[in-house]
């Protein structure tokens, strides 16, 4: 058993978890963001599986009382400290994160799919991947194993389907509701944990400044008309995969043609006017 254990310890990897400040959907109070917390849960699962794994937690943003309370929500999951890349409100988080990640070079970066406040565009993991030149896998359900610099991942696809992927490290993975629920945040560890505050070069997010922000609204769903005579038919209709109708499959087209087709559809659907 001894050599096995030794080997396992060698396999421990550096994981960086990026966390943001969340927002409760009904009250809007600051809290740990749902998806980011699931990301940290994933990292803690890797740590439990792979002794020797080191988790660092990163947040880029300003420091104040309410944000600290929210960030301590993550620390209460069992981390002793986190790194805070301090930058003024309204700054672009991507540059300092890229700088920090490039300097500390973790093997795996875990993020949530999208933030719960601000733009919430979900672009951050993609922007990071582009800057760092690392592969990105989205909608992670779980990390199955890490071996010789290759990580085996389970990606969640619609309707409960899963896809197993092997990715060479370093890589960025983003999690959404498919990943396991985050553990409870405990008050004691959260209170004791410390912040390592680093001031970074920050750049005002000029694009964000131009935007007009409004609370998100739920888009109305299209009615699915089911003409079923029996309970069995209704059940089948509810459970079965809806067949795409009236769509158009584009293969072997130039990017311009593809964009043209998408633009046309958006016009037809009244998304763009």
């Amino acid at each position, binding site marked *: 058993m001894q050599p096995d254990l030794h080997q396992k310890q060698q396999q421990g990897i550096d994981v960086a978890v990026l966390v943001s400040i969340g927002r*409760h959907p009904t009250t809007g109070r600051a809290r740990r963001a749902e998806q980011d917390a699931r990301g940290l849960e994933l990292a803690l699962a890797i740590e439990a599986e792979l002794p020797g794994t080191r988790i660092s937690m990163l947040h880029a943003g300003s420091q104040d009382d309410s944000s600290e309370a929210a960030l301590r929500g993550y620390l209460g999951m069992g981390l002793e400290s986190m790194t805070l890349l301090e930058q003024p409100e309204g700054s672009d988080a991507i540059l300092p994160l890229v700088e920090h990640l490039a300097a500390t070079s973790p093997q795996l970066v875990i993020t949530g799919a999208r933030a719960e406040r601000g733009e919430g565009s979900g672009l951050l993991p993609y922007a990071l991947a582009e800057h760092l030149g690392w592969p990105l896998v989205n909608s992670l359900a779980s990390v199955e194993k890490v071996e010789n610099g290759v990580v085996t991942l389970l990606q969640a696809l619609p309707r409960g389907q899963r896809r197993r992927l092997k990715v060479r490290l370093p890589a960025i993975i983003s999690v959404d509701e498919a990943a396991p629920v985050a553990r409870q945040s405990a*008050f004691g560890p959260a209170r004791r944990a410390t912040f390592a505050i680093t001031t970074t070069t920050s750049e005002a997010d000029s694009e964000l400044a131009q935007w007009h922000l409004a609370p998100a609204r739920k888009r109305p769903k299209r009615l699915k008309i089911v003409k079923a005579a029996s309970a069995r038919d209704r059940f089948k209709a509810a459970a079965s995969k809806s067949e795409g109708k009236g769509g158009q499959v584009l293969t072997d087209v130039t990017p311009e043609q593809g964009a043209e087709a998408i633009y046309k559809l958006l016009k037809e659907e009244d998304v763009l006017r």
Partner: protein
Amino acid sequence: MLETLLPILIFTALALAVIGAVRRIRLWRQGRPSRVNLFKGLVALPRRYLVDLHHVVGRDKMISNTHVATAGGFVAAAVLMILVHGLGIANPLLGGLLLLASTSMFVGSLFVARRRLNPPARLSKGPWMRLPKSLMAFSIGVFLITLPTVGLLPEGLLEGGSSWLLALVLAGVVAWGLGEMFFGMTWGGPMKHAFAGALHLAFHRRAERFSTKKGGAGRSTGLKALNLEDEAAPLGVEKPADFTWNQLLGFDACVQCGRCEAVCPAFAAGQPLNPKKLIQDMVVGMAGGSDAAYAGSPYPGKPVGEHAGSPHGPIVALEGKALVDADTLWSCTTCRACVEECPMMIEHVDAIVDMRRYLTLERGKTPNKGAEVLDNLIATDNPGGFDPGSRLNWAADLNLPLMSDIKQVDVLLWLGDGAFDMRNQRTLRALVKVLRAAEVDFAVLGTEERDSGDVARRLGDEATFQSLAKRNIDTLAKYRFLQIVTCDPHSFHVLGNEYGELGGHYEVRHHSTFIAELFDAGRLTFAPWKGGSVTYHDPCYLGRYNGEFDAPRNVLKALGIEVKEMERSGFRSRCCGGGGGAPITDIPGERRIPDMRMNDVKESGAELVAVGCPQCTAMLEGVVDASAEVRDIAELVADALVERSADDVSGASRRTTASTTAEEVIV
């Protein structure tokens, strides 16, 4: 020969008892400090023992009398024996008294022996089975050696060389008795309860529970707050040594009579909790070792002998087993039936919540839906995660006056989290109708109200409780009111008994108390009761926690209802299973507690069970195929209301238009 042997025996036993006492005290002192007035406690001890304790023990007349004869006889015999045989004051008067005392003790021990012949399951066996024999050995031995002192036997009978064997046998019997009674008292035998029990009464952490000559309420049920300002202070209890020293002393006082076990709803439901075993496990943890020597009923579904601990080892293991499993702690409904029954006044619920605090605050291990409920409380101020702005939606048509508008009022109606529950909204509407009929000047906080923090606190999340409580206290401080009325006994208890420590002092009334007062003041008139037979289920947090047993019954009486009492009612009422976050943590058992309670209702033959708590309503209405209907007292009152004639209504012009319209709407 005996004349030289007896003093040696007596003083050896006394010396060993003193050494044992020092060792035992050192075990207790492993605990954390606790502020206790030692002198005042010792002075109060006789009264606490003879009055307060007697009230509890006296519920079982037979055992009470047995104990008076045995213990009284023993104490008298012990003191007299030290004088007569230890110091050699061979006074015939003292000798006669000693004969009397040992006879009384012997008679007592016969009754103790009778109880041990076929002991009920709740009693611990093991070393306890030898106790009647030891009591007899002591009393008979002392009796016999005293006979020569009073001249009933010739002095020389035991001196002659021929009878040295008799003398030796007698000395052996006395030594056996002395060993159990003196030595065993401080070294951990069954008689330990006498030493630890007496000191536990003197240094009890809830001195308020005891009466004084001036009276005294004798009820102290609010949990003690954790100091969250001090970051070095431990959050709850991780290991036995984290209990305060007088808590450890309290555990050591347990007589293993199993009265707690007999009333524990979780034990009866087959959930892995037995209050007696839990206290014994704490004793094992304090002294170090395993529970293999425990001789009573185990935790249902958990064999004895698998758990072990030490004063500085964890109580609940991170992995595997330690002293106690977490599900044992989460099975408790905090109904306090065990505390109410305990003849040694042990505080089981405090200990359980202390250990839960550690699990929640330090480990983040609140089971099942616990974490979700706590997150909801933090983010939305209510356990269900509802939009706090919708707290008053059920009353959209009632035109309820808001505190924020009128600032000053007689009665502040505290809605509780039942405001989000459709069943309890019916109760609340009924209560509003009653208040309007009695022309009570009341208002609600509306969306300014938050959860009282009861669930958070019982689940061990002291931080969330204090956050909610402080914000509620700040809100209440903005307004002026004479009293708070609520239909939720849990809010009632927390607001009335637990906010005080955080700076909020209020006069709080349960709606049944308030309605009873309104009726007594002639402000309510009821139509005669036409329904069937009714029983009343006492909510734990109203009855046992706050001593309100009469008001709900008086209200039912005023309605013309003759209550058919269940076998377990009043201070012995069985819990509905809804307290202490038990429905949230949901530890599986063999039966459900509400099913057992509904069975009690069925046995009483009642067609309707009157309740006074949203939790009880929810739990009892959740029983499948129930034989009785469940209705809140407020609903029964609202149904029976009679419009009073204009003469009865003093100052009819006082009626506001709002109340008239609202009544019309409700009816």
